[in-house]
């Protein structure tokens, strides 16, 4: 692990030591949404790290970010510390470790559930219960339709993948019997 990652991990652990109990599952999903957003577009952090930005403007930007992603107010403190220490570019790593460490600390697992067509709430609940039984942890999930699966369901997180779909079966057929085997 690099020195930068170690530092980010320490910030994450310190944050969770203080605020973990105030974060519920919805807050967690909001953090994931922010993390995915920053992965796609890191302009936000570049703007925040800009020296030309006044203190008031920075404060407003942080508030807007927290409001937009419905983050717990504790994030304001974290962002303020990182800005003061001129380590705002560490925020993405810190957020990643908060997401990992929160799952370990609260014994929950975050899954992204995808299906080829729309799933009823009852089906989603069955999948959630199934994953809970498999992993032994509480499950937090986000759900989206992914037509590339053709038919079936995929549930994945940083450590596990459960999938039963036509796409995965076709891929297996291609791997096992396709040309070049």
């Amino acid at each position, binding site marked *: 692990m690099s020195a930068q990652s170690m530092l980010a991990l320490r910030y994450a652990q310190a944050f969770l030591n203080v605020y973990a109990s105030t974060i519920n599952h919805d807050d967690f999903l909001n953090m994931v949404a922010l993390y995915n957003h920053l992965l796609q577009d890191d302009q936000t952090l570049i703007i925040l790290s800009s020296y030309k930005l006044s203190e008031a403007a920075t404060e407003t930007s942080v508030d807007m970010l927290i409001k937009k992603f419905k983050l717990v107010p504790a994030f304001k403190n974290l962002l303020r510390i990182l800005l003061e220490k001129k380590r705002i570019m560490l925020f993405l790593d810190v957020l990643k470790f908060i997401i990992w460490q929160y799952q370990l600390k609260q014994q929950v697992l975050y899954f992204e559930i995808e299906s*080829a*067509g729309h799933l009823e709430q009852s089906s989603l609940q069955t999948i959630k219960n*199934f994953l809970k*039984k498999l992993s032994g942890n509480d499950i937090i999930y986000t759900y989206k339709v992914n037509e590339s699966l*053709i*038919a079936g*369901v995929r549930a994945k997180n940083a450590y596990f993948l459960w999938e039963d779909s*036509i796409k995965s079966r*076709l891929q297996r057929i291609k791997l096992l019997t*396709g040309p070049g085997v």
Partner: protein
Amino acid sequence: MSDINFVLIFFKFANFAILGLFLAYLTKKYIAPALKESLYAFVSVYYNLQNQYNISLKKVEQLEKDLVVQAALIEDLQSKVQQWQEVDKQHQLACKRHYENAIVSLNKKRLIQSEYLSESKVKTELFNEIFNEVETTLKNEAPDLQKDYIKRIDAFMTHELQS
């Protein structure tokens, strides 16, 4: 008369004697040395010629011996040349055989490879064609398939949860 005859005969003999003595003197004084000198010169020339003849004879003998040696050498060389030619011929034949074998082997490999490649190409194309067709068909039937899949997954998960 007889005396006159006798004197005449005597003078005749005397003439002959004087002439003889004169001839003898001439012979001894001039002819004999000249003859002797000529004879010596002749003998000298003869011995010279004889000597040269002997030397030439020896040279001829030496040359004949050399010729025999040279002939043996030439014969040996010819034999070697023949051996070399034979070896060269064998080598050329071996090279030709090797070349022909290599060509046959290469052609065989090329044939196998081209057959394999074409087979592989056909296999790939066929597979991809079939695969794409199957995928397209499945995509067209996706809504129905999804219903079946969800039913099956639901049933499987419910069963797993109850067990």
